[in-house]
């Protein structure tokens, strides 16, 4: 456990105990701990910040919150002794008002797009988040009973908030991905579609007609590539999943792929296009991690480490031996 982890855990313990009331002696201990290091104090404040925000939920809780929380232990328990019934009703009304206004605010699909080399984080109204990679177009529509998104082009990483009553569907042409709450990325190039699952499970359905009409269930580490009527499914390691999602950090991570594949990846992110001239050079294996938009650094490396010829020609970089 890192020192940071230990500090955060200690801060959390103190915060939880403080909520139940500290004795004078305990308070003195806490003050001493807080004053011992700037790291202690900022870690404590940071947790306190979200603890306060979590407390605001209590003002909004509907009658369901508790029922849900208790569902798996004591179904008939009631904790609302001593609380007037009208208060419960009021909370429910408030919660309903919030839901209704949300629906009114999101009647039509919202459009999101990125340019070459751009990335964008989109917060959807249901609490889900979507990260758009370079050259991507996405539409999303959230309503009280469904959550839908359309990937028209490019690549996106979905972090879907769990909601069993409203499945989240991503449409990619005639294929769809359906989830309840999980993390996965999808990439679309024309009719070629790739789905990578980082956590949880998703259901990929093919075109309605055709042999692949039966949905495929994908779990963590699964990669499915669909083209035409067929779907190719494979498994990959956690490390490879991380590498494939490195674009979320603005990086490209290559594990001994060919230079021509590496060049094609860079070309997605940059106006400057790489072109490999001869087959021997195209077959050179490349490994390492690179800044996606720093094509110049990559070219410098090819020149200095691999001794390749580089020729700049009006936005095109020609690479040869």
């Amino acid at each position, binding site marked *: 456990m890192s020192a940071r982890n230990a500090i955060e855990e200690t801060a959390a313990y103190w915060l*939880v105990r403080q909520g139940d009331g500290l004795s004078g002696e305990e308070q003195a201990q806490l003050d001493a701990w807080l004053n011992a290091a700037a790291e202690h104090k900022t870690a404590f404040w940071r*947790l306190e910040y979200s603890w306060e925000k979590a407390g605001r939920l209590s003002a909004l809780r509907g009658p369901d919150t508790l029922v849900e*929380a208790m569902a798996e232990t004591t179904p008939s328990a009631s904790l609302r002794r001593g609380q007037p019934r009208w208060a419960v009703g009021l909370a429910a009304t408030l919660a309903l008002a919030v839901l209704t206004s949300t629906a009114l605010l999101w009647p039509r699909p919202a459009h999101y797009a990125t340019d070459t080399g751009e990335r964008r984080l989109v917060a959807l109204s*249901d609490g889900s988040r979507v990260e758009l990679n370079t050259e991507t177009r996405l539409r999303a529509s959230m309503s009280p009973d469904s959550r839908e998104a359309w990937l028209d082009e490019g690549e996106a990483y979905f972090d879907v908030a769990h909601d069993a009553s409203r499945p989240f569907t991503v449409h990619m042409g005639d294929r769809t991905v359906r989830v309840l709450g999980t993390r996965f990325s999808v990439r679309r190039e024309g009719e070629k579609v790739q789905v990578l699952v980082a956590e949880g499970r998703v259901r990929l359905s093919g075109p309605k007609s055709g042999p692949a009409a039966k949905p495929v269930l994908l779990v963590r580490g699964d990669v499915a590539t669909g083209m035409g009527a067929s779907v190719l499914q494979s498994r990959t390691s956690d490390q490879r999943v991380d590498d494939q999602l490195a674009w979320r950090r603005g990086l490209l991570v290559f594990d001994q792929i060919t230079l021509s594949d590496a060049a094609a990846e860079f070309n997605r992110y940059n106006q400057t296009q790489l072109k490999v001239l001869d087959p021997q050079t195209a077959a050179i294996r490349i490994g390492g991690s690179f800044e996606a938009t720093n094509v110049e650094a990559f070219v410098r490396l090819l020149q200095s480490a691999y001794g390749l010829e580089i020729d700049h020609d009006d936005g095109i970089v020609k690479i040869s031996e």
Partner: protein
Amino acid sequence: MVEDGELKAWFFREVFPLEAALTRYIRRNWRNENDVADLRQDIYAKVYTAAQRQLPLNARAFLFTTARNHLINTAKRAKIVSFDLVADLEASFPEAASADLDRQLTARDELRRVQAGLERLPTRCRQVMTLRRVEGLSTKEVAAHLNISVSTVEQQVVHGLRALTNYMMGGQGRIRRSPSKTPAAKSESQS
């Protein structure tokens, strides 16, 4: 010397809302994902110490400049990052400092985020957190109600609070649990 209460209000108002953007900035410029949370804690501590002398006028610029300097220094000390990366970092002013990257969450977004964060917790942890924080029961009452020990409730809330914080601030909502079951507060507070 800026008073602590004022400093805390400043962190709540100006600094913590930028955490998602700060984390993305660190992640983009640092190869090892495991270091991100540690680096962030260092940066907060540096910001705190500097702001004690005087509150910076522009919190965003100050936070990201501190972050950049800290990354450069750490990379130079560690000698594991390529010189190229350090040079790039030095040349570019943090892009994240432009307001575009992080959208300020409205109060309603925030509540939804809390709710989504709670739903991500393991079942027992979620029950405990909901009873303790949303329903407002004390630790003892939660323990009696679920028929579990007070220390179990504490552990669950500690874990739940950390995971929830991580998620609300833009993380994945996952926390490495400490291998030892001993409350860290006990051992730490001895010294």
